[in-house]
């Protein structure tokens, strides 16, 4: 009985992994495929045109990729800096209108970015923030903050403040309690939040366009025209690099955080 249950579980897990992974395999195949007409099971001709173009120095792909990663890392760090205190307040303290604040935090996800974007553009022109790196970072915070705050709020709700109070009872200062107790406790939540925020920032297209004005070019801005124009080889190759970049960065980040805090998902998830 137990064995059947176990093999059923394995089957289910493998099916899920297959469903998630299969599109990626198609992406890999398409990025090397010149032509794949019906009714052929396998592509008729392979080529490396897409990757040749990507590594050609004229296309600037590598520089843009590094620039985008840097931009998204900056956005992630700032989002976390803002989210931690906000989430702590929402997760631990009780105050009037808390539910309202929790809802309002989600507003940027609910309201389409086109609607707010145009207004922000006008405001940023007045402040001289358009076409600058800082302006793009600021505008990325808008779609990123809701994710950061919501995930960390849940984390704080679970951890509570008892551990922190214990530390203070034992004589730790506020800062000490934060760095030695709170931070390691919320590390798994931080990891989840930063991964998601990084992905949200890395995939931004419209807002980067509007505020960056072409001075700040990100990887998704290079990729999108190919997807629109239906050049499947180029689109797949760019998407593949896009997905791999996120994947590698998330693994690296997880490794670093785990080593630093020697923490495991001890009491939740």
């Amino acid at each position, binding site marked *: 009985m137990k064995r059947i249950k176990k093999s059923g579980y394995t089957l289910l897990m493998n099916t899920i992994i297959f469903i998630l992974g299969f599109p990626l395999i198609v992406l890999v195949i398409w990025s090397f495929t010149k032509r794949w007409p019906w009714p052929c099971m396998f592509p008729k001709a392979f080529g490396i045109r897409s990757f040749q173009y990507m590594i050609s120095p004229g296309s600037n792909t590598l520089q843009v990729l590094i620039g985008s990663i840097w931009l998204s890392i900056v956005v992630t760090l700032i989002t976390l800096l803002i989210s931690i205190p906000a989430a702590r307040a929402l997760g631990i303290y009780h105050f009037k209108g808390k539910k309202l604040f929790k809802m309002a935090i989600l507003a940027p996800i609910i309201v389409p970015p086109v609607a707010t974007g145009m207004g922000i553009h006008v405001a940023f022109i007045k402040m001289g923030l358009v076409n600058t790196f800082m302006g793009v970072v600021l505008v990325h915070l808008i779609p990123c903050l809701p994710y950061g705050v919501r995930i960390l709020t849940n984390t704080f709700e679970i951890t509570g403040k008892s551990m922190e109070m214990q530390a203070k009872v034992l004589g730790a200062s506020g800062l000490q309690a934060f760095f030695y107790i709170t931070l390691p406790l919320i590390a798994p939540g931080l990891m989840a939040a930063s991964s998601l925020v990084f992905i949200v920032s890395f995939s931004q297209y419209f807002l980067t366009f509007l505020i960056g004005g072409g001075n700040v070019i990100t990887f998704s801005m290079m990729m999108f025209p190919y997807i629109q124009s239906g*050049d499947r080889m180029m689109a797949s190759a760019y998407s593949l690099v896009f997905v791999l970049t996120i994947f590698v960065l998330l693994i690296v980040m997880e490794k670093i955080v785990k080593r630093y805090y020697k923490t495991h998902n001890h009491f939740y998830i």
Partner: protein
Amino acid sequence: MKKTSYTLLVFILIFNLVGCGQQNMPVDESVLEADWEAITENVKGTTVNFYGWGGSERTNRWIDEYLKKRIQEEYHITLNRVPMDIDNILSKLLGEKQQNVEKGTIDIVWINGENFYTAKNNELLYGPFTEKLPNFNDYIDQDSVEVKTDFGFPIDGYEAPYGKAQFALVYDQERLDQAPKNHLELLEMAKDNPGKFTYPAPPDFTGSAFVRNVIYDIVGSEQFMDMEPNQEIVREAVQPAMDFLKRLKPYLWNQGKTYPATIAQLDNMYADNEVFNTMTYHPYAVAGRIATGTFSSGSQIFLFDKGTIGNTHFLAIPQNAPNKAGALAVINFILSPEAQASKYDPENWGDLSVLSFDQLSIEEKKRFEAIKIGEGVLPIEELLSHRVPEMPADLIPIIEDIWSENILKGE
């Protein structure tokens, strides 16, 4: 739809902020008054930002690998290509104008048709500048309708021609014996191969051009050139063509119940052997597609005997361009026989040249004649002798509406 909503939004914002600051932007005439030597001397070491559609790897590659290098050698200018859709460019320029930003970021815009109309009417463009360019004066036929007007709208020197496009249909010789020469043969072909022909639904740029080509083939093109943009008048004029498209509909892919939304989808359906035909605005790019292996080697373009629609794409300079002199130098270089020939070569891009062949020297002519046009295409003389002018821009949305009413929603 997207474009309309953006434009609407922009206008709402403009009206909101009318009180905030209404000064006329100071017009920077100094560049246009300087002589050409002074302009080219002053642009050394500067950067020019070139904004335009970035969805074609071959187009991007031509700019990245050829144009950037030659501009650097010729004028010591660093050319920076920014891939941005024209909708986004226009909303950016409108936003900047509204705030009186005197120094924008865009030096050159790749533009034509209704977008040029919008930009010029909103005073977003700088000019008139074309008479300033030596190559424009030397090599371009100033009296040509295609140089003086863009989709029927007068250019007045506010944009310089960049390249020429011409509508053409594509068929696969391995699967079809013969290409149709007019709309009736097209219907026969569709009847013989039901479900193997379709066209992108207007307002897709190419699909809309296909509908206009059918209209031209049935009722002729002359009457549209000065037609009033009135729904009733246009409806009456195009009725025979709509009746024809209705007859064609049951033999289309998926019985005409659905259409590919974009030309990109139709191209992919053609590459996947799902349909026997596709269509294009860039006839020589088909040779490139065959060379890269995207299209089967039997692909061949064909035209209707009565001709197909041709139009021109252009380069303009925004009113708030930070480096207008640099932009002039770059555009002048693009109009040189050397750059136009390189752009015409299907190995590079395969875009038709805008230069007047008669105004070229013998050596320059040889440069063009030496280019192999590649597989699957027709000689340039054949294309140009079958070229008919584009309709005025304001008729196009009306025709698209009539199509969607009669064909898409109709029985």
